[in-house]
């Protein structure tokens, strides 16, 4: 082994990476070479001094570093805060979402059409004239009757509930409504109608 090879092994030794057989080779060279013994001693001291000196005389990071970093973070979007709340309250969120979806779909329904809609189980006897729905005298409608966007005139009998949405209700003296007769012509009422209706529908299914 020459001195150059020995020098390379010395560094491996300082890296704690020198295999045993090579360590023995280095040792036998050091036994006969004083220059290399000196060099290894110096390298070892340099190594130790480096560990100590590199860490010495370093000022500490300023105390407000954390605050400064946190204040520079890009602002989180509000939506993200909202989403975190959602993740934390899944049950409440589900209920809220249900209501929201219903309210929005109801609103859009309420705004969307002004077309006459007549709903009921027994529509054969109902007479429709333009935007007016007539329950003629002497007829009896089985079940509920719902009229949207139209005027309603009742001369006969309705055996269930009568609901008029966005329209007028005229009940003649001969009219007989077994259930509730309701007129709904505001968005909010409409929404409540939809909600209670949906809930009872859900309940019955």
């Amino acid at each position, binding site marked *: 082994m020459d001195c150059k090879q020995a020098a390379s092994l010395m560094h491996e030794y300082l890296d704690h*990476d020198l295999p045993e057989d090579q360590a023995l080779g280095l040792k036998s060279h050091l036994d006969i070479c004083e220059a290399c013994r000196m060099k290894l001693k110096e*390298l070892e*001291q340099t190594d130790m001094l480096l560990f100590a*000196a*590199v860490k010495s005389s370093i000022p*500490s990071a300023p105390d407000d*570093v*954390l605050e400064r970093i946190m204040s520079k973070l890009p602002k989180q979007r509000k939506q993200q805060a909202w989403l975190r709340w959602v993740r934390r309250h899944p049950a409440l969120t589900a209920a809220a979402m249900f209501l929201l979806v219903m309210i929005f779909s109801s609103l859009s329904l309420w705004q969307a059409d002004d077309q006459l809609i007549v709903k009921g189980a027994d529509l054969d006897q109902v007479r429709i004239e333009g935007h007016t729905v007539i329950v003629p005298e002497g007829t009896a409608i089985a079940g509920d009757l719902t009229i949207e966007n139209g005027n309603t005139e009742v001369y006969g009998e309705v055996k269930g509930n009568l609901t008029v949405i966005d329209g007028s209700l005229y009940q003649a003296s001969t009219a007989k409504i077994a259930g509730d007769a309701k007129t709904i012509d505001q968005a909010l009422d409409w929404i409540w109608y939809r909600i209670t209706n949906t809930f009872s529908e859900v309940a019955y299914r």
Partner: protein
Amino acid sequence: MAEHMDTRLVKLARKGNQGAFAELVELYKDKIFHLAYRMLSNRHEAEDIVQEAFLRVYKNWDRYDENQKFSTWIYRIATNLCIDRLRKRKPTYSLDAELNDQDGTDGYTLVPGDERTPETAYLLSETQTTIHQAIDGLPAKYKSVMVLRYLQELSLQEIADILKMPVTTVKTRVHRGREFLRKRLEHKLF
């Protein structure tokens, strides 16, 4: 243990938990500051590096590889920022910084309970200054390796991971750096 903690904090911080992010800053701010200070020999620039490194972490979570240690990633970001700064400096800047930025580099620190005489303390202080100046004068590629090795006491493999280079390259640089320092100290100490 520390790694386990890092992993948990990183997971939370990635999801946008600012508390977990603040914990990570607390855990690493000094390490990054020391690294940057030793690389740049300038306190104000080191502060900038700490801020910039953490902001990059915050903005680039999507680029973080979970199989990698968080320390490796943040050291890489910080080291690269320092190397960029060193490259942008005018050749004389390093000397200017050394002459003007005296805070922290002057004097010596005695370990509490250390019973060295003033003369040996002075010698040590002089040795430290020699070492600090020698490291400061190293080219950036050697400087980063030496600082990671001797300041952070990282293994050669970790340094290789941080700098994305083969471990043999890291080795060669440590060996040369050590040899360079030995020669600088030769006449003063040995």
